[in-house]
């Protein structure tokens, strides 16, 4: 077994330029800044003593921000994967080899996941201080990071999908962002609207709400990972309030269902992309 050449090349060249270090620097700088702000704001200035419960809030806020950053960064990692090859006129050179299109797609996805993994790993020293002080266990942290990666996989697959569909990279990037935001928050809004309209017309809450809509949203899944009850302005903004109201109905934790959903959808998208870019089917 030899290493996928796409992975080998992309990891080498992307790390070599100035882009990757810049991205990591900004990413860490931003997270560091947040933590500093919350330490000052929440822990010392208000109470002048150390309160682990507040640290949990800080954890949730930081985790939400990290989630938000990953959601915002991942689309650009793959949304130009194929359209960029077309624009650069290198796609034919890839496709005229006997290398399988499936492995080409997988290679590009793995590279983008590796980027996200790098961001997470790089932030580990900063975050672990907050997490551990806040009474967050190792398992909780691993679960959180696994959820980040699965979400990144889904978003990377979506980016890949649009980069194979659209010829031009800017179009692909924009459509990917719209779809990602739609999936994360459009679903929550849709569900909220459904509840409101149902109540308006019938005067009561629906017997069988559209939970499945919520379960497709990584933002909803994320809310259940960090166990938020909708508290904290920022958590509300980033994850939506729906979780608090709905969680009671689910037998299985929403994040488990959402993780399964993301993985299945990603696999289907990857298979479709591999089929789509194959010139002679």
């Amino acid at each position, binding site marked *: 077994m*030899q*290493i*996928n*050449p796409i992975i*080998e*090349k992309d990891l*080498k*060249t992307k790390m*070599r*330029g100035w882009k990757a270090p810049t991205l990591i620097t900004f990413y860490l700088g931003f997270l560091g800044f947040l933590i500093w702000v919350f330490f000052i704001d929440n822990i010392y200035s208000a109470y002048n003593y150390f309160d682990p419960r507040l640290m949990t809030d800080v954890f949730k806020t930081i985790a939400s921000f990290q989630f938000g950053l990953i959601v915002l960064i991942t689309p650009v990692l793959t949304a130009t994967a194929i359209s960029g090859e077309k624009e*650069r*006129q*290198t796609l*034919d*050179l*890839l*496709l*005229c*080899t*006997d*290398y*399988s299109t499936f492995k080409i797609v997988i290679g590009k996805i793995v590279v983008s996941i590796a980027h996200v993994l790098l961001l997470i790993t790089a932030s580990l020293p900063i975050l672990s201080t907050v997490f551990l002080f806040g009474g967050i266990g190792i398992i909780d942290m691993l679960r959180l990071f696994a959820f980040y990666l699965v979400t990144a996989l889904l978003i990377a697959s979506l980016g890949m999908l649009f980069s194979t569909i659209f010829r031009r990279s800017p179009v692909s990037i924009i459509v990917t962002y719209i779809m990602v935001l739609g999936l994360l928050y459009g679903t929550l809004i849709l569900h909220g609207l459904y509840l409101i309209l149902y109540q308006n017309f019938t005067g009561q809450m629906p017997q069988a709400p559209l939970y499945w809509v919520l379960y497709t949203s990584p933002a909803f899944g994320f809310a259940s990972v960090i166990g938020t009850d909708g508290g904290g302005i920022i958590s509300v903004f980033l994850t939506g309030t729906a979780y608090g109201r709905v969680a009671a109905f689910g037998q299985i934790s929403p994040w488990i269902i959402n993780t399964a959903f993301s993985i299945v959808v990603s696999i289907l998208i990857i298979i479709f992309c591999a089929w789509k870019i194959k*010139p*002679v*089917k």
Partner: protein
Amino acid sequence: MVVVSNLVKKYGKLLAVNDLSLEIEKGQIYGFVGANGAGKTTTMRIISGLLRATSGKVLVNGIDISKNPRAVKKMIGYMPDFFGVYSDLKVSEYMNFYSGLYGIPPRNRKKIIDDLLELVNLSDKRDAYVDSLSRGMKQRLCLARSLIHDPDLLILDEPASGLDPRARVEMKEILKELKSMGRTIIISSHILHELSEICTAIGIIDNGKMVVSGPVEEIMAKLSHSRRIKVKVLKGGVEPLVKCLQEEPEIGRITTGNDYVEADFNGNGEKLAGILKNIVIKGVPVISFTETGENLESIFMHVTRGNSQDADKSNN
């Protein structure tokens, strides 16, 4: 080795390749000639497995490209007419990347890459960034890349396009070397003259249709049945000259100007000398007697005339 039969490619209503058939034997250098938009690139991309034909069949070493594209791709080295390179990749890394795609084991790569870079005279550029290479160097690098898996068949789409005369000569030298190695090559150009030196067979395509195809000598003989001569004469010499020429069996179509006559001539040098002797004896005041050297280009123009205007229209 390559058998293309009744190939058709439609882009919507546009018929890019129209019932094209050709056959190439092992060791042949097949020149594919045609005007812009004739359908060369389309045909070559279909043979390389990069484009699906609307109908028709392509067999490479007996394997159907539409049935087993990956087996065929393994046997083909393809160099596109336009291509890009990845930025921030060095020449050796570029070659290494494509060796990986072709599944060449890492331990064999260094020697293959060294040999190929040597072949295309880029050995000293191993560690240069691909982006920084000149156009001619990139073209040669792409040629080296297309050879990396030691393919049975090379498909080169206008490998010399956009090169300056010097780089063209260099490219031609490399192709001659490949020819001497006994490779089978399909090479396209819209300059017939450029191909006639290295090719063993030529196919002229126009508007997606094969107009003529066959061994180079045969094509040349078929096409250049008439050399063209131009005779300049003093005032009043045109008419007697035409009369003279009309008596010669080897002379074909005659056109006249104010002080000259042009005529198609079909025969050898002795016949030509004989004609000159005859017209001088008959007292035609000849100033000069030359072969206009109707070259391959004009033959090409001749063959593709009439249709090329349609081709231009459908292009625009």
